């Protein structure tokens, strides 16, 4: 095999059985950057580069400006923004997942900027404690940060949306750690951030709850680096060795002696299986099996780890150092006879119109699908466009001889589409040097978001359309950008321009654009745009922001979402004079009832004020009743604790009565609440009487009982005078009183009392309830019999006797009542043999003969 056309293999470096390539991504567009004087932060996945003068290094400052300037570039070195830094000393800077720049001041303030240098409102502070200790170092990862203070303690913020500084459990260090590294929450078992701190002779694994010494024997560690998949950690030891462990230090993986006493300036992972060490002019790449490659560098560089390689950014160039993907190696490796390589050769011969092409193809006919797959994969992984074309051509050549089942047709289309996108992204003007592997790890929707953020709307829109993703996000962001840029276009015209684009896109959120318009001070435009918004949760807060509170309340009420109504009401309560606020509530019952519910719990005084002002006296009265309930409950507890010492609680008892009287007066203000007014007054009266009776009898078990229970208690205690008084005072009906008394007596098994009561003047409920109660509570037969005797009706009497098992009496009554059916029944029950049976038989016979 000769050298394949276009083959890059000559520039590859072998490292063990694998190859590494250094591919130049860009010649930097910047010309005046001296990276070695800068603190640099490069966003992952080929994102923007931010830098600020490193005040830890001595630099000759030329020119008049003494304040440092923060500069932001694309990965191709095109300037995105520059602004003067006029805050405190920079302790660290870095990019978030959304490609916002975080700059941490040593005083603990964290500033956020967009990649275009606009200050974002989401800045926050690490708190006074951290501020007092001063921040000395800081690591920003995708969605959080870890800061080291001068007192050698660590603080973390793990959610930048809702920043909440949390102190990690590192303590007891007396000197600064040698270095530290962060394992991001998405890689830890606990789901929380872990920090590896190289201190003294070991490494301490720190999280919110604990700091554990990892027991690393090779200390002191001077450099630490965590692999991009969070699984491994590489360390440079004091003995000049590079050591790799699993991230929990549970397993030692490899060791490589560098022969260097000086620790490297940077240690970075190249993908997830090799590590790169950087000294001033040397780059040493160490593979997983101890193989190594040494590169010499002509100028200082910054290393940026990616999932499949490491980027080297220097003053003039931007390069990618990566392991050559296997598919590429298969095709281009010198002397490769892999099917993919042979297919590639065949295609070259075919292009040269050489008949050997066919021969080459035949030689791999059995493994043709594999060969095609290799070439497609290689094209996908290849960064050079000419070689992408050559590889794709080879794939198509082989594909033509494969059946549709053997190699899926759409795979080639998909990959071509992806390559078009990746090539467009890599173009110098865009400056997003993503490899296919990185693009896959990042996911296309995220790529689109990043383009939007970078204000590359047209490209974003095209990619979104090409991939069948909804264009709404792109359009909305475009509209926002348009609003910012077109400050001299009148509101209506701008609204029309925006709606013209957004109208074709059903999912577009007008509220987002409106919010932006409001934020840049175009309230009129915001109001116009909000008319197009369908989502109340988006609309309402914005209307509030625009000061259109009435409209906001209307929209919130329409949405049926109580939460939105509260949002508006709380705002109105703050901004409007009380009278006006009350007028708003009065006009909207739904809003009023929600506000009442809140006030009842949190601001009862205000509720009372509102109710009084709007004439809702029953509402105030109900509040008094509730207060009375609470007071009486408290009183009840106090009494049971004091065990009957009534004296101490008298004022409290009076208070309950006062509240009830007040409630009664308030209820009386409206004519619909007469019953409530009377009830409250009656209740107060009941409590007074109860208190008096307690004082009279010295028995403290009445206050708080219901009227019926009070009566029962009196009957039980035999206090008939008191019972009579209650009966008269509260107009208890005779029926009711009879029921109550007989049941109470029966339940207390006061048989004598029950009989006496049954003999009292004519019972308004008859005698049957007496019988039932006596039987229910197991009265002796004699008692039951005597009560039954009082029944007026002979037949009923016989039945009751029979039911009570008093058969003789039953028979006598039946006979007297001339009830022959009853007698037959009794006969059945008794049988005819016993003397009683015989007697009953005679009675029956007599009755029947008498009637004949």
């Amino acid at each position, binding site marked *: 095999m000769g050298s394949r056309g276009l083959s890059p293999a000559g520039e590859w470096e072998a490292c063990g059985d694998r190859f590494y390539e250094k591919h130049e991504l860009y010649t930097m567009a910047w010309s005046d950057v001296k990276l070695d004087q800068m603190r640099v932060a490069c966003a992952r996945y080929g994102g923007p580069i931010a830098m600020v003068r490193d005040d830890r290094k001595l630099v000759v400052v030329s020119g008049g400006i003494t304040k440092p300037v923060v500069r932001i570039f694309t990965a191709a070195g095109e300037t995105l923004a520059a602004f003067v830094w006029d805050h405190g000393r920079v302790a660290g800077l870095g990019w978030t997942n959304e490609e916002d720049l975080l700059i941490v001041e040593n005083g603990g303030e964290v500033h956020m900027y967009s990649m275009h240098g606009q200050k974002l409102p989401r800045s926050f502070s690490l708190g006074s404690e951290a501020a007092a200790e001063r921040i000395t170092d800081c690591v920003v990862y995708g969605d959080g940060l870890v800061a080291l203070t001068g007192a050698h303690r660590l603080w973390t913020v793990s959610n930048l949306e809702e920043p909440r500084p949390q102190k990690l459990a590192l303590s007891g260090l007396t000197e600064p750690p040698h270095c530290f590294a962060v394992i991001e929450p998405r890689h830890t078992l606990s789901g929380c951030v872990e920090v590896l701190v190289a201190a003294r002779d070991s490494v301490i694994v720190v999280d919110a709850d604990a700091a554990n010494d990892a027991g690393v024997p090779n200390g002191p560690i001077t450099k630490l680096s965590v692999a991009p998949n969070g699984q491994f950690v590489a360390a440079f030891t004091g003995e000049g060795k590079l050591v790799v462990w699993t991230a929990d230090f549970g397993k030692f993986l490899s060791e490589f002696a560098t022969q260097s006493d000086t620790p490297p300036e940077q240690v970075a992972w190249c993908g997830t299986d090799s590590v790169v060490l950087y000294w001033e002019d040397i780059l040493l790449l160490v593979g997983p099996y101890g193989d190594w490659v040494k590169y010499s560098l002509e100028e200082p560089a910054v290393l940026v780890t990616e999932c499949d390689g490491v980027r080297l950014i220097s003053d003039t160039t931007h390069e990618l150092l990566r392991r050559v993907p296997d598919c590429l190696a298969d095709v281009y490796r010198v002397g490769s006879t892999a099917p993919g390589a042979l297919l590639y050769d065949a295609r070259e011969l075919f292009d040269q119109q050489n008949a050997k092409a066919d021969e080459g193809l035949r030689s791999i006919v059995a493994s043709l699908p594999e060969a095609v797959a290799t070439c497609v994969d290689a094209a996908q992984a290849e960064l050079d466009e000419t070689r992408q074309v050559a590889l794709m051509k080879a794939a198509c050549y082989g594909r033509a001889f494969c059946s549709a089942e053997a190699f899926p047709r759409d795979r080639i289309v998909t990959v071509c589409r992806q390559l078009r996108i990746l090539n467009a992204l890599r173009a110098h003007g865009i400056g997003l040097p993503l490899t296919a592997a990185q693009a896959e790890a990042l996911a296309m929707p995220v790529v689109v978001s990043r383009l939007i953020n970078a204000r590359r709307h047209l490209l974003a829109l095209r990619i979104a359309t090409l991939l069948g993703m909804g264009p709404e996000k792109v359009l909305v962001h475009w509209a926002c950008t348009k609003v910012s840029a077109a400050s001299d276009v009148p509101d209506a015209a701008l609204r029309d321009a925006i709606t013209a684009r957004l109208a074709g896109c059903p999912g577009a959120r007008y509220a987002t654009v409106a919010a932006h318009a409001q934020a840049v001070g175009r309230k009129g435009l915001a109001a116009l745009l909000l008319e197009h918004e369908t989502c109340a949760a988006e609309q309402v807060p914005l209307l509030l922001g625009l000061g259109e509170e009435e409209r906001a309340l209307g929209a919130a009420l329409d949405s049926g979402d109580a939460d939105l109504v509260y949002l508006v009401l709380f705002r109105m309560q703050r901004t409007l004079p009380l009278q006006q606020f009350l007028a708003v509530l009065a006009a909207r019952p739904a809003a009023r*009832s929600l506000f009442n519910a809140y006030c009842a719990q*949190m601001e009862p005084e205000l509720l009372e004020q509102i109710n009084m002002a709007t004439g809702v006296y029953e509402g105030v009265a109900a509040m008094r009743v509730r207060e009375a309930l609470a007071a009486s409950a408290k009183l009840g507890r106090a009494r049971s604790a004091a065990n009957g010492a009534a004296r101490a609680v008298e004022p409290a008892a009076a208070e309950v009565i006062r509240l009830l009287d007040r409630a009664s007066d308030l209820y009386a203000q409206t004519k619909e609440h007469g019953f409530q007014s009377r009830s409250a007054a009656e209740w107060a009266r009941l409590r007074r009487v109860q208190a008096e009776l307690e004082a009279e009898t010295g028995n403290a078990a009445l206050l708080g009982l219901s009227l019926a229970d009070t009566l029962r208690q009196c009957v039980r205690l035999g206090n008939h005078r008191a019972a009579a008084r209650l009966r008269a005072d509260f107009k208890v009906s005779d029926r009711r009183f009879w029921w109550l008394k007989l049941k109470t007596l029966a339940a207390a098994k006061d048989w004598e009392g029950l009989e006496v009561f049954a003999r009292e003047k004519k019972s308004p409920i008859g005698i049957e309830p007496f019988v039932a109660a006596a039987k229910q509570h197991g009265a002796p037969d004699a008692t039951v019999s005597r009560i039954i005797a009082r029944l007026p009706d002979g037949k009923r009497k016989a039945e009751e006797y029979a039911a009570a098992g008093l058969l003789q009496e039953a028979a006598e009554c039946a006979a007297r009542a001339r009830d022959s059916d009853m007698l037959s029944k009794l006969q059945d029950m008794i049988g005819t043999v016993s003397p009683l049976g015989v007697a009953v038989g005679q009675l029956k016979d007599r009755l029947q003969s008498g009637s004949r």
Partner: protein
Amino acid sequence: MAAILPNYNEGPLALGHLREEARRLLIELLDSRRGKKVLVLDPKVSGFLGLLAEVSLLKEHGIEQLLHLSTEPLGDLGVRNVIYLVRASIENAKQIAEQIKETNRVRAAAGFEYAVYFLPRRTIACERIFQEEGVYGDIVAGEFPLGFIPFDYDLLSLELGTAYRELVAEGDRSSLYGVARALTRLQALYGGAAMLKGKGPAAAAVRSLLLRMRQELGPEAPITGGGPIDEIILLDREVDAVTPMCTQLTYEGLVDETMQIKYAVGPQLGQRAKSIQSDYKTSKAAERSLAELKEFASQLKALPNIQRHIGLAEAVNRAIAAPAFRARVSVEQSLLDGHGLDASAESIEEMMCNEEDLFVVLRLMCLLSLTQGGVPKKYYDALRKEVLHSYGHEYMLMLSKLQDAGLLVKHEGGKGNFTALKRAFRLLVDDVDDKNPTDIAYVFSGYAPLSVRLVEAAVKGPGWGVGEEVLRLLPGPSFEVEQTSDDKGLPIEKPAQDRKLTGVSKKRRVVVVVFMGGITFAEIAALRFLGSQPEVNCAFVIATTKLINGTSLLESIVDDSIKTAKEVAVL
């Protein structure tokens, strides 16, 4: 909590997915705080949490201890993380704030980390309370977007126990927002329904919320039609407040009436009960001897829990054999029939004298009011006064609430609508065969629940199946619309077209019936019976805000302040 949760996937919709989703959310929530933790629950949440997750699952995810929400300071828990899982209510937020403040005061050194998860979402009112109480900075707030919880293979509940009170007595419609959200989620999971019918003010509100939510979703709104759900029927409890006031006379209903089915027992009971019920009708079971039941049960030895059922049946039997129970049912029957008003009022009075349970009395009073178009003047104040005298003046606020809710009002002339409704919907059925029922009326021994009659009419169609003039007798608007989308794919609503009823018989339609304000076990039984009728040819999935009976419905209306006051009185 049940050891093994039934899977609920053999119904018309595989409802198990809903629970899986809820479990996943719960686990995510628990795992979001690392290490060992204490879980503090409001009692309403702890009730149904057992339907979502076993204790062992909670343990697996680091829960060391379960506590109920209170304002007492936390003790020495041995862990740092405290997770609150509570309904997003103002009361709960206030209690949490109190507890945290107290704990900070008493045990500042404990260094607890608080996370509060609100169901179904965090609200502005709650956060404002945290701010006002000065604990906002101590709390990580989140939400647990729980929707419908499966209670049986065809039964979903939101477990919003106070929905009815809020709707009818307090004018707070936030529960409807929850209903609409849960229905939107349900349709996102199983596909949208093409038809939407509803009756009552709450139904109309949910309809407009549903449309709004679909429109907010835009092109992502669930596609309607073609999915397993054919139709959604929204019913407002307010449309039929009569039914819950009646004593349920099915097996599950009786168990519920006599011992109040609580969360975990219910569904299992339902499953077992069905097999028993088919052979053995306990409704009016007084005639059947227990020996027979025991013998019957012995044939079913294979079924687990049968012993528990015998115990339940015995207890139910004792309760329904009592004269008080018979008296209560007979008053109900005569009120439904519409005669013997004076005798009924007298019986109610007598029950109070006999210290019958307050809620039984109130149910009869409400039934009287609802069936006769209000309580006649001569009884209105007298009966209410009697309630206060017998059970305590503490209940005066409750009586006002019942009045506000329209459940217990004064007769202001006219006959009320119930008489007309009885005729229009054939609510009273004379010859009911309990053993081989042919009509839903068997669930109340001759009274067919109005709510289910409405559903019956709606599924038989066309439209609502009854005349406009009949629907007007019931509160709130009625509607029938088609959920669909315009040519741009945006969700819209269209007036329903007349469907040809000829093709209906082929496919068994799946109808989701939503009861806003709660549903009783008897109504569930009636709906299931209805679904089993060949001429109806529908499989019902029942969704509700809460499983209720008349007592629990009225209890939800009692002010909390009364409850505490009465508890003290019991001391």
